């Protein structure tokens, strides 16, 4: 991998150059929290943020997306508007890039999703390193480091950003700045290794995921799920903020006074009571307990069977977003028998 370094004071200039690769979006402070949004000026960007409310998946799988427009004389026409828009997401954390790499697998496969693929192709990703806060457990989920899925990745090291160049487009971005980037020295690498080790030691949350899929399987009939079902409101907040939740609903709407319409997909959640409801009224998961169990089962067991690892990346958003304080790390510790469920 090509590795360069950028003097810290040159970041502003780099950001101005990078605009030619697309509309720049970055974390911006909003009411004490952070959101990814279009920058009006570079000074709005907050690269020292902890986490954004919604993950960057909102750019690749928008909360609401028109898939087709329908008119009787032409049938279903795929919607292409917005798919060619070039964006630069500046300041994406490693766990969120890891999550995009997981979504890449879901939206590829036997039937590649062309909407997701087009957006993934046209949106550049520039990663930045981060420090864990009280909700972060990406290290436990082995998602605290990414080696692909970004165009550039910045590691703050001393007076520089050590820069991993992930794609040809990332290389073009570096080259477009002229002589701004410099070659790395052994001293930079040594410093990077020390910083990386220090980060490893900085995590406040740590869970063990080894054999977790077997444990989830064995504890399928555990009372833990009923207790969680009692607490869970089925609000779906954890799914909406999850960087790897991808369930979507598809609906058709007819324009008022017309026979033309559109087919739209919207984010859905397995916690919603209609998720497994079929025509005729039978619901395969009609209790809150069965739905929250399904969410854990799919992330920690189902995904392992399908893709070889849990789909959770340890970003901590569901912990921060849950209105009744259901904490995935506590649930996993309970399942492992490390925590008494009733004491929670």
């Amino acid at each position, binding site marked *: 991998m090509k590795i360069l370094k950028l003097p810290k004071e040159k970041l502003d200039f780099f950001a101005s150059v990078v605009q030619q690769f697309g509309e720049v979006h970055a974390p911006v402070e909003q009411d004490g929290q952070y959101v990814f949004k279009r920058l009006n000026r570079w000074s709005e960007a907050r690269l020292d943020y902890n986490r954004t409310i919604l993950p960057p998946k909102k750019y690749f799988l928008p909360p609401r997306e028109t898939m087709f427009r329908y008119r009787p004389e032409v049938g279903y026409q795929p919607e292409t508007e917005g798919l*060619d828009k070039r964006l630069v997401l500046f300041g994406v954390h490693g766990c969120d890039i890891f999550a995009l790499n997981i979504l890449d697998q879901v939206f590829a496969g036997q039937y590649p999703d062309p909407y997701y693929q087009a957006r993934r192709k046209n949106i550049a990703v520039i990663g930045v390193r981060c420090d864990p806060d009280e909700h972060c457990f990406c290290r436990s989920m082995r998602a605290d480091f990414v080696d692909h899925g970004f165009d550039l990745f910045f590691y703050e090291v001393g007076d520089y950003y050590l820069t991993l160049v992930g794609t040809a487009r990332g290389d073009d971005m570096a080259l477009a700045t002229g002589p701004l980037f410099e070659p790395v020295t052994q001293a930079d690498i040594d410093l990077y290794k020390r910083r990386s080790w220090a980060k490893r030691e900085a995590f406040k949350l740590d869970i063990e995921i080894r054999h977790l899929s077997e444990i989830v399987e064995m504890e399928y009939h555990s009372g833990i799920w009923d207790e969680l079902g009692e607490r869970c409101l089925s609000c779906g907040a954890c799914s909406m903020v999850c960087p790897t939740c991808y369930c979507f609903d598809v609906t058709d709407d007819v324009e008022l006074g017309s026979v033309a319409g559109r087919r739209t997909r919207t984010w859905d959640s397995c916690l919603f009571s209609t998720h497994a409801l079929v*025509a005729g009224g039978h619901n395969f998961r009609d209790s809150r307990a069965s739905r929250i169990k399904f969410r854990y089962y799919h992330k920690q067991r*189902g995904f392992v069977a399908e893709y070889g690892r849990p789909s959770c990346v340890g970003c901590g958003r569901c912990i921060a977003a849950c209105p009744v304080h259901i904490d995935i790390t506590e649930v996993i510790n309970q399942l492992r028998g490390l925590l008494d469920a009733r004491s929670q």
Partner: protein
Amino acid sequence: MLEVSEIPGFYSPVLSQNPYQPQPARIVRIYKMVPDNHLFTLRFVDDALAMSFSYRPGQFLMLSVPGAGEAPISISSSPSRPGVLELCVRRTGRVTNALYRLKTNDVVGIRGPYGNGFPVEELLGNDLLFAAGGLGMAPLRSLVWYALDNREKFNNIVLMYGAKTPADMLFREELVSLVDRTDMTCLLTVDSDPGGVWKNHVGLLPTMFDHATLDPARTYAAVCGPPVVYKYILERLLRLNFSKNRILMSLERRMKCGVGKCGHCSVGYKYTCLHGPIFTYWDAVNLPEMI
């Protein structure tokens, strides 16, 4: 429709290889088989597609009714009879209610076929047992006709089908015509016969096992029906020492995409749309919530 060449290259897959793209198909016949269970015969508007469209027995389609939405429907016709597709549709949800408002010659959208279908290659040379209750005949019918149209490729064939009354029996006329065939055993039964004209069996579906000779070691059983059918038929098959791998079931789930993306049809760690809808009983034992 926009030409692909008018669009910049990078998102052309949305136009040219869009797995969600419905193809127009014409309703060529509506057969009012049973109230609220009509048989719709469809033909792709594109003639070449109508003739080339291939599928496996047990696969399903995503059916679009403009303005109402999309729903998964199993294919009731057999790939051994190409040209048209037959869908046995129960009027029960938004999409199917909208379909029932359409008339012959109206155009709907179809994409597919999806799912694994029956493992036809594995079934060749074996005995087949079809056991269906109520609406369960709809997904099994494709394999029934596939086997009968390729009769020499299969050994003994036994079909047992139970409905509440003769009037509730799907495909009644054609199934009654199978009763006289000497190259198969067709056992039709009803729970009750209010009209008093039914010439076949009266009694619950599991009692049909008393009229059939089965060799579990070389028989594949295809089972479909409401939960009560699974309960009693599976019990019967296991008692006869059927291997769990030789019991095949067609499952129903909520589906929004059919292609393993939308997440709704997930059971345990499998997607009904990709790994199903045909599962073995062993799958069902292993996958929570399956039946």
